[in-house]
């Protein structure tokens, strides 16, 4: 239904009178309400009692049970605090590691003259053809034979070497103004010095964009942590949430409170870093 609306708005493109604008804003407003509805449901249910969620008399506002928060973290049957911590460690280390490893490689491929550099680049490109989700079987085989099941190493390290992120960094550095680095080289800095003192400080926007995308995908990852995390102690937030859906002992209000808590950090990151995120996505065109 929203898809036919744009033509309607389009007809009145550029100051199409009060009527056109009203129609446009009405369409956008309705779509926005639909998009916000699930967020409202999470918050409403998270602050409700169970009868309020499952009862027939559906009220718009909950009874604001703030105690649900402490109940969730005090519940000994779910280690929610533990899985929050795991997710934080995984997402943060993954972001830092990916930025470091992939940006260095991207810079090397883009800027340092080496006669086989094209061949190396094609080898990186080739990995983009095999989707990471499909390789979970062989990756699990490898990681389990390394003895990394249920460990942070197993959760984090295999995800650091993203051919795609490296590719994005290379594209970015190709467009980075060469003059800046050359000035630094003349002044006696090597590649390493020029990279850390000139290139990185002048690329913080791009680094922030990639960091945001990596953090979000690290926090939201499901398949790999599901494969690796067999012991509940190593569960990430997503695995814990998923287990709630099958675990009958957890109550509805706790499930929704857990969902709310799991989304909150990302919303925060999102709203805070949105400028870079939008810019980065528009620049790169693709998800990390």
């Amino acid at each position: 239904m929203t898809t036919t609306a744009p033509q309607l708005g389009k007809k009145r493109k550029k100051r199409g009178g009060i009527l056109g604008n009203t129609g446009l804003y009405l369409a956008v407003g309705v779509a926005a309400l639909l998009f916000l509805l699930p967020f409202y449901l999470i918050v409403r249910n998270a602050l409700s009692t169970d009868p309020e969620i499952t009862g027939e008399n559906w009220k718009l506002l909950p009874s604001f049970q703030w105690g649900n928060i402490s109940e969730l973290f005090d519940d000994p049957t779910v280690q929610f605090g533990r899985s929050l911590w795991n997710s934080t460690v995984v997402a943060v280390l993954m972001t830092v590691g990916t930025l470091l490893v992939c940006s260095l490689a991207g810079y090397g491929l883009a800027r340092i003259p080496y006669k086989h550099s094209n061949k190396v680049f094609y080898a990186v490109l080739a990995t983009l053809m095999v989707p990471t989700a499909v390789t979970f079987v062989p990756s699990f085989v490898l990681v389990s034979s390394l003895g990394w099941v249920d460990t942070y190493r197993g959760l984090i390290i295999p995800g650091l070497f993203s051919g795609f992120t490296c590719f994005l960094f290379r594209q970015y550095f190709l467009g980075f103004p060469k003059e800046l680095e050359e000035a630094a080289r003349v002044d006696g800095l090597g590649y390493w010095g020029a990279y850390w003192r000139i290139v990185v400080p002048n690329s913080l926007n791009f680094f922030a964009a990639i960091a945001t995308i990596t953090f979000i995908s690290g926090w939201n990852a499901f398949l790999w942590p599901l494969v690796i995390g067999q012991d509940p102690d190593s569960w990430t937030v997503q695995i814990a949430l998923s287990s709630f859906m099958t675990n009958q002992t957890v109550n509805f209000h706790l499930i929704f409170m857990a969902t709310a808590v799991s989304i909150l950090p990302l919303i925060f990151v999102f709203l805070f870093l949105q400028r870079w995120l939008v810019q980065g996505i528009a620049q790169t065109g693709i998800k990390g």
Partner: protein
Amino acid sequence: MSTTTTRGVAQPASAKASQARPRRGLRSNATLNFWLFTGPFLIGLVIFVFVPIGWSIWLSFFDARYTVTPSHFIGFDNYKQILTNSNFPESLLTFTVFAAFIVPTTWALSLGLALLVNQLRFMRAFFRSVFFLPTAVSYVAAALIWKMSIFSGVRFGLMNTVLGWFGVDNIAYLANPSPPWYWLVIVSLRLWIQAGFYMILFLAALQNIPAELYEAAAIDGAKRGWQTFRYITLPQLRATSTAVILLLLIAAYQAFDEFFNIIGTKATWAQTPLMELYKTALGTSQDYGAGSAGAVILSLLICIVTLAQGKIMGFGRGEEVK
């Protein structure tokens, strides 16, 4: 910039030294630096990408049940088994149906939202944020809301409550495969999460269309609305559309999270290829050989679809697709 100047003043000696150094030294210096920069990444890439892929191909020719170091070579039997004796082919069909739903609807919805937001003169950033916000939500969390609050079969589900106002009886959306109400649940969830992301891509592309094109069209007598959309906007978005459709297809192939959490692996219907692989390799049978064979087949399929789609849509014709 300030760093460069201070360094230049402080270290005239080193600048002189580098001038005096012969060119040959500079080149081997570059080679060393190349490996210094790319080495850590390449080592990791070989260990965690190339080795698993190679291992997977190797495993797919062995009888590898409960073991990752098998000794019994069985040729293409794993491929035969996963293509004939399992639900894997059926899951490919499930994927096809899913892709046939999700790719065009997401394309249309995200383009529609982009066109709408692009027209706004007030509160544009606000609405853009609203549509973009679901991108932050995980499929697991969304699955939870969809399954337990919006589409739960019983009375307290939001959808059934609303339908109830119009006198429609409760619908059990997820209880059985016919009628296939579950598609409504799955597709609406993914639309909600994905549309904002692709909207950003379209917004960026829309802002890159030169205004002169519209002016020229107006002089030529093109009517605003459908005509300019059909003959200017849509062709100008071609490169972005190609990229979006490609990304949507690849994302659809990898569908796992919401199917796993909403339908579950115990159901016999709506099992995606990755769910079948998950069950084969990590379920009770622990059949790494057949699982690997399935992974190889799925990878090849994705490559073929990607290349074919690129060929049909003219991949690489647009410069935005970097």
